[in-house]
C-alpha cells in the first residue's frame, strides 16, 4: 500500500491505497467524488479531466500516488455553495450538454484553458478541446458555452 495525501477542492483527504490505483478511481471510489467520469479509460475522451495544481490532466492515466502532496480540483469544487461557476452557468444557459457524460471533463478542460487564454477565439476553443470527446452535441453549444463563460468571467473581473 502507498499513502496518498491530497488537497481536493480545498480539503485535505488521505488514504492508503494500492500503488496501481488510478487517480480517477481514487476520486470516485475511495473519496466518493463521482462527478468525475471514467469514459474511454485510454486517455482519449477526456471525461475524467480534473485539475492538478490548476492544470488539466486525465485522471484515468495517472496514479493516485502521483498526485500525493498536490492540489486537485474536480467538478464538485467548481460551484461556491448554490452559486454555479460561470462555466457551469453558461453550459446551462447555452444548452452545452445533452446526456451530460462528457460535461465535467469539458468544464475542467475549459477552466484550465481559460486561465491560460482568458479571451480565446472560437478556433482557439475548438483546438483546446481536442482532448475531450462529446458524442451528442456536435460541440456547437459547448464551444458557445465556453466563449460565453469567457465573456462573463472577463466581465466579472473588470
Amino acid at each position, binding site marked *: 500500500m502507498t499513502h496518498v495525501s491530497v488537497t481536493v477542492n480545498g480539503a485535505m483527504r488521505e488514504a492508503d491505497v494500492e500503488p*496501481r490505483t488510478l487517480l480517477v478511481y481514487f476520486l470516485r471510489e475511495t473519496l466518493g467524488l463521482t462527478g468525475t467520469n471514467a469514459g474511454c*479509460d485510454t486517455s482519449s475522451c477526456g471525461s475524467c479531466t480534473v485539475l*492538478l495544481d490548476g*492544470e*488539466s490532466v*486525465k485522471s484515468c*492515466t495517472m*496514479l493516485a500516488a502521483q498526485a*500525493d502532496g498536490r492540489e486537485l480540483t474536480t467538478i464538485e469544487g467548481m460551484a461556491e455553495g448554490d452559486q454555479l461557476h460561470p462555466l457551469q452557468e453558461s453550459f446551462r444557459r447555452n444548452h452545452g450538454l445533452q446526456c451530460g457524460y462528457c460535461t465535467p471533463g469539458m468544464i475542467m478542460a475549459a477552466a484550465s484553458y481559460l486561465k491560460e487564454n482568458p479571451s480565446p477565439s472560437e478556433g482557439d476553443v475548438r483546438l483546446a478541446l*481536442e482532448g475531450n470527446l462529446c458524442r451528442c452535441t456536435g460541440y456547437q453549444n459547448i464551444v458557445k458555452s465556453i466563449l460565453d463563460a469567457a465573456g462573463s468571467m472577463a466581465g466579472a473581473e473588470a
Partner: protein
Amino acid sequence: MIPAAFDYERVDTVDAAIAALRADEGAKLLAGGHSLLPQMKLRFVMPTKLIDIGRLHDLSYVHEDGGGVAIGALTRYHDLEASETLRQLAPIVASVAGQVGDPQVRHMGTIGGSVAHADPAGDMPSVLLALGATFVATGPGGMREIAAADMFPGLFQSALAGDEVLTEIRVPKTPGGWSYQKFTRRAQDWAVVGVAAVRMNGSANVSLTNMGLTPMRAAGVEEALAGGADPATAAERADEGTAPPSDSFGSDEYRRALAKVLVRRALEEALA
C-alpha cells in the same frame, strides 16, 4: 483497465533512481506516465516496480548551451511548447511539442519519457533524429552521450541501459528552415505518417515517423538532396529502406505513397 500490481517508490535524486533500478531488474522509471501507464493498463508491460522520477524538478529546463539548446529530460510538452528559448533557437521542437496528444496529455507527458519509450509513431523521437540530437544518460559510472543515430535500435527500444536515466537532450540551433508534416485522420490521433525536415549545412535532414519499427532518417531522400535533386525528385525516394505497418489507418502501400507526398511538402517548406 487496471494495471497488474507493482511496488511504488518516489525518488528525489537521479542517484536514488539509479540505485533503485539496480536493486530490481523488473523496475521501470515513471516520468509523466503518459506512454507507460496506457501500456500497463493493457498489460503489455508489467513492471515489478515503478520508480517515480516525476518530482526531479532539476531535470525540467530549457537553456541555451554553447552552439545548441539543452533540454532537461523531465521537461513537459506543455513547457517545451511555451519555451521562448526553443521558439527562437529550435522552433521545430516547440511546435511539435504542441502537436503531441492534447492539452491534458501535454500537462503530464515529458520529452525524456517519449524518447525512452521509443515509439516509432511518436513525433518527438523522429524530430530529435532529424535534428541529430545528443542524448545524455546518467548511470552508476557517471554520464555518457548517445548519438541520435544510435538511440533507437529497435521497436520500443532505446539505447539506455537498464540502470541508466536519460537526463538531458541537446539539440543544435536550428532557427530557420524546418517543417513537421503530421498526417492524422482526427485531431489528437497518432501520425499515420509524419515527416520532419530541418535545413542543415545547405541541405536538409529528413526523418520519418511511423514508417517502420523505429523512427528513421530518410537516407535516400537525403542522398538525392546532397546530389542536387529538387524537393519533388528527392521525395520520390521517401520510402526507401522503410517497412511501414499496415493497420486500420492505412496499408503499407498507402503509407509509402503518403510518405512521398509529405516529404515533398516538408522539403518545400523547410527549404523555402
